[in-house]
């Protein structure tokens, strides 16, 4: 609470995804900030990120009908960040538009 990024309230989940690609914190934040067109400082700001997440339609923390949920949001995150997300690859394999996970 006092030191974490804030998950999908902010960009914490996105930075976490880049850490899974072995990026250190600074590099991961810089990568995500560049893709979102915000500053690294803004990434942990829930006031800024609430609007940014809705604009990109990549999942918001509150319940808003019509916005991307769960796997829908992750498919958009994969495209936005230019990364493979295993569950998205699995969906694409199931509907015949991708190679699937390894």
């Amino acid at each position, binding site marked *: *609470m*006092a*030191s*974490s*990024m*804030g*998950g*999908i*309230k*902010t960009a*914490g*989940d996105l*930075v*976490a*995804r880049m*850490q*899974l*690609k*072995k*990026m*250190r*914190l600074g590099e*991961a934040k810089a990568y995500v900030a560049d893709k979102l067109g915000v500053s*690294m*400082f803004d990434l*942990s*700001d829930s006031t800024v990120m609430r609007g940014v997440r809705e604009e990109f339609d*990549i*999942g918001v*923390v509150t319940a808003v009908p019509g916005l991307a*949920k*769960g*796997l829908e*949001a*992750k498919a958009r*995150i994969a495209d936005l960040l230019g990364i*493979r*997300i*295993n*569950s*998205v*690859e*699995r969906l694409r394999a199931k509907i015949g538009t991708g190679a699937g*996970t*390894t």
Partner: protein
Amino acid sequence: MLSAVVTRMGDGSTVRLTRDEVRRDIVEGSEAAAGRAKVPILDENEVDYLVDMFCSPSRVWGVERGHEAVMTKDGGTNTLISSRLSSGIAAPIGRETAVRLFERAFAYDSMEVGHIDYSVKPSKFIVSVEQEHMELLQHTTVFPLFYGFMPNLGLYYRPDGQFANPSDLLPLGRIDEARRTQEEALEACHDDVVWQSKMFTETGADGINYDTVASTGDAEFLATLRATEVVSSTTDMPVEVSMAAEMVLGFHGELEYKGTRLAGLWPHQQMKLVEEAGAAIFGPVVNNNSRKSCAWNVARAVTFVKACTAEATIPIHPNVGNGVGGVPMFEVSPMDMVSRASAAMIEVGKADGL
């Protein structure tokens, strides 16, 4: 009369110290880590930061805005749905609800799905249930989901497992037999860890978390390093390796990974091998001394962690929980010390996450 700083001991009890006593404890805590692991002590600015932090009367401390780090979680949802394991509250909810609460209500950056009996040996028998939970949760959540478990080599020894127990053999002086049984058991543990990990490659899991690694010493660490190497090189599944304690105990004593003897390794040395094995994230652990102040314990912990982050090429997520990372050894963690330990890990230890 000198003004008193209200702080805590490593067992969570409140203690009143002077500012000079806080500084002394911080310097001595850092020196204790440096002496053990042969790593640098904290510099003067870092000591000053910790002194100001511990002497602040504020109940909660945090990182500077913009310095926030990424949270990963071990123990799955046991905090909510288990009992005394992970200080659980036995909430009357299912695991899927619990994971969604961690995303929506607690704003975690990532989460872990894991069996309530968290070791690989029991969880492998119900892997299809575990897979189903992961698949369903991948549909409803946005944040990254790990599947997590403990290699827990101890369960492979009698009376729980099929291999002779080295703890029975060592007191009898049967050193060679104790070593042979660990070598045989670690192969079985390794095979289970690899098998269980690969069962999640088709579920859409975002990563695997090996937790409480080396809880039974160097043989378990070797099994985990080899499994990490196999999973990292043959799948696209990122692996997080989180340790059980600050030093790898040498129950065997002669085991090596790629030419490095495992017994007696400290966090910054463990990190090098974990990196070499191909892991994506390393979680060092620093134990608490409940008879020392939290100032001493936090300074000691961040000194170990700073030595890790100084040389790491992968993210470092130190464990900050009951009895480790400067947090008091007590079932109910005091917020004033959890928040201080967390902030110190990031601001001084330069951790990439917790």
